[in-house]
C-alpha cells in the first residue's frame, strides 16, 4: 500500500452531555444549519445575495402600497393609505410565502432526511423562521422609515411585534399541516395556491374591520388572521380608528394548528418514501 498517500486524522469526537441537553442542542444546531443552507441555495453566495430576503417583500409591498395610494381614496382617521396597505401586505406576504412553500418543503429536502437527526419539523421550522425573519426585518425598516421620513411613531410597537410573532406561529402550524397533507396526497399541493389566493380577501390584510357592518365583522373574526392584521394596525395607527381583535382566540387557533401539524407530520414521516 505504498500509493495510498497521506491519510489525515479525522476530527476528535465531541463530548456528549445529558440526553435532554443533547437533544435540544442537536435540534438548535440542525435548524441553524438548515437556515444557513436555505439562504445559500435560495440566494446564492454572490453579490447582495441574502439581502433579497428583505428586498423582495419590501419591493412588492411598496408597489402594492403605491397602487393603493394612487387610488387617492381618503382613509378614516386621516391614515396614510400607502402605509396602511404596506403594513397590511407585508405580513400577508409572510403568510402566503410560508403556506405556499410548505407543500414542496419536504420534497426538496428529502435527501437531508437521510440524516437521522433532521426531521420534517426542523425542515419546516427552518424555512418558516427565515420567512418570518425577513418580514419582521421589513416591518422594522418600514416603521423606522415612518419615524425618519414622516415623524410617525407607531402607537404600540410591542403589539405589532407580538402580533407578527403570533402570525409566524399560526403560519408555522398551518404549514406543518399542509406539508403533511401533501406528503400523503400530492394533489393537495395543487389546491394550496388557489386556496391561499382565494382566501386573500378574507385575510383582513387590505381593509379595516371598522369599515364593515357589525355582523360581517363578527363573521370575519372567525379567521384568526383577521385579528392579527387588526392588531398590527392597532399597534401602528393606535386610536386613529377602532380596531377589533381577539388575541386569546388566536392563541387557541395556534395551539390547535400546531398540535395537529406536529401530529400529522409525525404520521406523514412514516409514510414518506425516500427514493
Amino acid at each position, binding site marked *: *500500500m505504498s*500509493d*495510498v*498517500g*497521506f*491519510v*489525515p*486524522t*479525522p*476530527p*476528535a*469526537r*465531541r463530548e456528549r452531555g445529558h440526553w435532554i441537553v443533547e437533544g435540544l*442542542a*442537536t435540534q438548535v*444546531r*440542525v435548524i*441553524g*444549519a438548515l437556515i*444557513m*443552507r436555505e439562504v*445559500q*441555495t435560495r440566494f446564492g453566495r454572490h453579490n447582495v445575495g441574502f439581502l433579497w430576503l428583505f428586498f423582495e417583500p419590501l419591493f412588492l409591498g411598496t408597489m402594492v402600497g403605491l397602487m393603493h395610494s394612487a387610488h387617492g381614496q381618503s382613509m378614516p382617521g386621516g391614515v396614510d393609505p400607502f402605509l396602511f396597505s404596506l403594513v397590511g401586505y407585508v405580513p400577508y406576504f409572510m403568510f402566503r410565502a410560508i403556506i405556499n412553500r410548505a407543500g414542496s418543503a419536504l420534497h426538496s429536502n428529502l*435527501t*437531508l*432526511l*437521510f*440524516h*437521522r*437527526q*433532521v426531521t420534517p419539523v426542523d425542515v419546516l421550522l427552518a424555512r418558516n423562521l427565515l420567512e418570518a425573519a425577513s418580514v419582521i426585518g421589513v416591518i422594522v425598516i418600514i416603521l423606522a422609515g415612518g419615524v425618519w421620513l414622516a415623524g410617525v411613531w407607531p402607537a404600540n410597537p410591542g403589539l405589532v411585534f407580538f402580533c407578527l410573532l403570533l402570525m409566524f406561529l399560526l403560519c408555522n402550524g398551518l404549514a406543518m399541516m399542509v406539508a403533511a397533507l401533501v406528503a400523503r396526497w400530492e394533489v393537495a399541493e395543487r389546491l394550496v395556491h388557489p386556496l391561499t389566493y382565494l382566501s386573500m380577501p378574507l385575510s383582513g390584510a387590505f381593509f379595516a374591520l371598522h369599515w364593515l357592518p357589525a355582523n360581517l365583522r363578527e363573521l370575519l373574526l372567525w379567521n384568526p388572521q383577521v385579528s392579527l392584521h387588526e392588531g398590527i394596525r392597532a399597534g401602528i395607527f393606535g386610536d386613529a380608528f377602532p380596531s377589533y381583535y381577539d388575541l386569546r382566540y388566536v392563541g387557541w387557533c395556534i395551539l390547535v394548528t400546531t398540535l395537529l401539524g406536529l401530529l400529522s407530520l409525525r404520521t406523514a*414521516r*412514516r409514510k*414518506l*418514501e*425516500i427514493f
Partner: protein
Amino acid sequence: MALILEDVWKSYPVRGGRREILKGINAVVERGDAVGILGRNGAGKSTLMRVISGVESPTRGRVRREMSVSWPLGSGFGLQASLSGADNARFIARIYGQDVRETLDFVQSFSEIGQYFYEPVKTYSAGMMGRLLMGLSFAVKFDCYLVDEIISAGDQRFVQRCQTMLEDRLGNASLLMVSHFADHIRQYCRTAVVLRNGLLELYEDIDEGIAVYQSL
C-alpha cells in the same frame, strides 16, 4: 454496544396491494464486525440499509441502535447537489456538532478531489461523489458505517485509503457494505450475508457467501 434488528418487516404499497421487501429479519451487528451484504437487484439491500440507519421505520419489528450509525452512504444520499462539497461539509459538521474548520480540512484532505471541492456536487463524477461521501462520514467518526455501493466507483488508490481508514477504526467501528463486486466484499469484509426472499442468510466464510450469491 451493538446494532440489533428484531423481527424487522418492511413493505411498500404498490399497485394492487403491498409488496413485502423484508420479511422478519433478525440480526446483531457487534463492534468491529465487517459484513458484506449481497443480493440481486431489487432484493431489498438498500431498503435494509435505510431501515437500519433509521431513515425509514420498519413496518413491523424494531431496530435497536446502541452505537452511532452513519446515514446510508450511497449515490448522493444526504448531500445537496446544488451546493459545493465544502458547503456540504459545513452542513454535516453543523448538524453533527463538529468543528467546522477541522471537518473541512479533513474532508478536503481525505477526498482528494482538488478544486472540485468548491464546485457544486451535481458536477461530480460517481467516483468523486464516493470520495466526498466517505470523507464526510469518516469525519464524523461513526461506530457503524453503512456503505451502499459507493466505494465501488472509486479507483484503487481510494479503495486503499478507505481501507486504511477502516482498519484504523475496526475493533472500534463496524461496517455493513452492499456491493456487487466480490473483490470489494473480500477486501473489506469478514463475513457475508445474502439477502434473498426478504430474509438474511449468514455465511461466516466469506467465499461461501460469495459463491452462493454468484449462483443466484
